[in-house]
């Protein structure tokens, strides 16, 4: 199985450590991973804004970069959601369909495809609050959703609980959106920031030292809100913990 690694723009530009951890983790798990150098974006920002035709160039490039891989893995739920569910600015050829059907968010790839049952190198002696982005939670369904009254399950939690020393804190509103929402964070800045502050305070009050997430875009937004509001909490991508980061 040849894996194509997609590193979304937020991670590439602002959280390269999360990208490095993703690559190293997949390598530790014995995977054959390549990162096509000419990648940019999956097209989500344009698609999300309604400017779908403007996503065509990014989507076409994405397919040129990744069609040759068996699986495409990315440390981002919302980008996976775009590729899987909304990637239709370009004609749906066999190549496009192959890419869409074989794109995985990191957690679901580890959990569902590789079925990893141990991270012997990982130890994280901190209390963490898990933030499921809405993309991973409600679109990819990597965890149960409170609105549906499902039997509780959580793929990211399954993976994290295999890490030595880790403790969990549960916020009062565990699956409320943090308010990032792509361009929403800028066009509706006031609501977005208020949602972000509420979210980080909720985690902090529950006793979390870290907020861990599979989505760097949510982290970037929450971190910005926490720093401005003076909420003492740190942020880390799930790939970093699973790859053995200690802090």
């Amino acid at each position, binding site marked *: 199985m040849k894996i194509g690694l997609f*590193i979304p723009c937020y991670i*590439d*530009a*602002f959280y*390269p450590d999360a*990208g*490095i951890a993703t*690559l190293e983790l997949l390598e530790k798990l014995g995977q054959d991973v*390549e*990162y*096509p*150098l*000419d*990648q940019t*974006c999956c*097209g989500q*920002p*344009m698609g*999300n*804004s*309604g*400017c*779908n035709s*403007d*996503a*065509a*160039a*990014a989507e076409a*490039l994405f397919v*040129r970069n990744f069609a040759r891989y068996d699986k495409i893995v990315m440390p981002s739920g919302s980008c996976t959601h775009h590729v899987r569910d*909304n990637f239709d600015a370009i004609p749906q050829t066999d190549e496009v369909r192959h890419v869409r059907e074989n794109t995985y968010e990191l957690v679901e790839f580890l959990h569902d495809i590789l079925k990893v049952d141990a991270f012997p190198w990982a130890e994280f002696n901190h209390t963490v609050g898990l933030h499921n982005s*809405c993309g991973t939670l*409600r*679109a990819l369904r990597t965890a149960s*959703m409170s*609105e*549906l009254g499902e039997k509780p399950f959580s793929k990211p939690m399954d993976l994290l609980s295999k890490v030595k020393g880790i403790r969990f804190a549960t916020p009062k*509103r565990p*699956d409320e*959106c943090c308010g*990032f*929402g*792509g*361009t*929403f*964070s*800028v066009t*509706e*800045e*006031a*609501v*977005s*920031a*208020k*949602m972000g*502050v509420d979210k980080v305070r909720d985690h902090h009050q529950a006793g979390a030292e870290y907020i861990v997430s599979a989505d760097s875009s949510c982290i970037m937004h929450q*971190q*910005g*809100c926490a*720093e401005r509001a003076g909420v003492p909490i740190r942020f880390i991508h799930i790939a970093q913990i699973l790859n053995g980061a200690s802090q």
Partner: protein
Amino acid sequence: MSDKPVNHARAAEHFIEDTPHLQFHDERLWDMRQKRDAQMHILPEWQELREEASRIKEHTLSRLPEYLEQFETNARKNGIHVHWARDGAEHNRIVGEILKAHNARNLIKSKSMVTEECDMRPYLAKQGVTVTETDLGERIQQLDDQLPSHIVVPAVHKLTADVAKIFAKDYHTDPEIRDPHLLAEAQRQAARPVILHADAGMTGGNFVVAETGTFVVCTNEGNADLSATVPNLHIATIGIERLVPRMADMGVFIRLLSRSALGSPITQYTTHFRGPQKGGEMHVVLVDNGRSARLGMEDFWTSLKCIRCGACMNTCPVYRRSGGLSYGAVYSGPIGAIIDPTFNERKYSTLPYASTLNGSCTNVCPVKINIHEQLYKWRRVLVQHHEMPFVKREIMHMAGKLMGQPRMYRAAIKATEVSLSTMPRFVLYNWLNPWGKHRENPHPVKQTFNDWYRKNRETAAKPAAAPETKK
């Protein structure tokens, strides 16, 4: 009326600045959402009920004309006068004529969103008819000259002190009252004489049953029953989509409605109206007002399944923090954001953007409307119809081009890093940069992932994909 786009973001910002109101609003509605969850957990068949409700509504909508005619025939047999209104103006004219024929000058009215849609009160005022809202929240909004901010709890954005102030002005009560019971009592004392002397009563209708020619009104205050039965003339204004085929279907909807709305098992009053009372008259006005047109919209027709429970509003983190009035429309929240543009695309073009597309609304919807997917689809439609600010449109256009050209994209990323690390704070955090208004920017990094990979995995780095096409 102006069709200038509603500035939801600015109105929301204004609401957020008022901490006491914001906090109350958020917590009150979240509490309703939690009570709804508790009710859901009591019923193991909850998801089946939702599925069944959705199925019944889709079936009914797919044969709407047939069922409407069945209702009309049966209602007439029951002695109900049935009227058809194509739009708001026609609805108002019909109601005005009925009132005139009875020389009715005082109309008491129970909650009905359709009459808000039709802008009926100002019309009737000009005809010399006094309209008094009998629902407590709706009356507060009427006295304050505001639209309802929520489908179910119209004055939920107001604190007790706000209500005390409004009642003091109109009912001459003490403006310092902080006991909600005293305020409710003030409304009762003011409303009862009006109700007793009314010439006509108006209600909405939550459900219309085709098979029986009857309709059902659900309230918690009993005001609809008073409005409908104290005067001899009862007019019910109902949207044509509120239909269900059989009486047997009611069990599904009655179980879902109040549980989804307030988290209570059932509304306090669930009244089936079967015909006029002895010596009285009953009129039903069936209102289209754009509904048939919406039924023809491939991506959006299922919004007509809505039973107006407000669950999507209660769960919506954006609605809870921006308040219903910020939507500038009769219908607010997620459901408003997908049906308002069907009334006026330009005016409500910003509303589908008043969402993070998180999808919670879709999950709570008792009739399984795919609300967040429709929000996404509306954005596409609005951009195609040019209902998007030019600057934003251009930014997306440029971004789209950039993302298709890796070398230019790489250069742009470099520029971002340089600017973030070197630009002085005051430039980054000025009004041109909404991100920085209430948030710190992400920290600059020494190298991007792409740079790191080139440096550390050079040998593994694969050649570029097919060369870029020169434009």
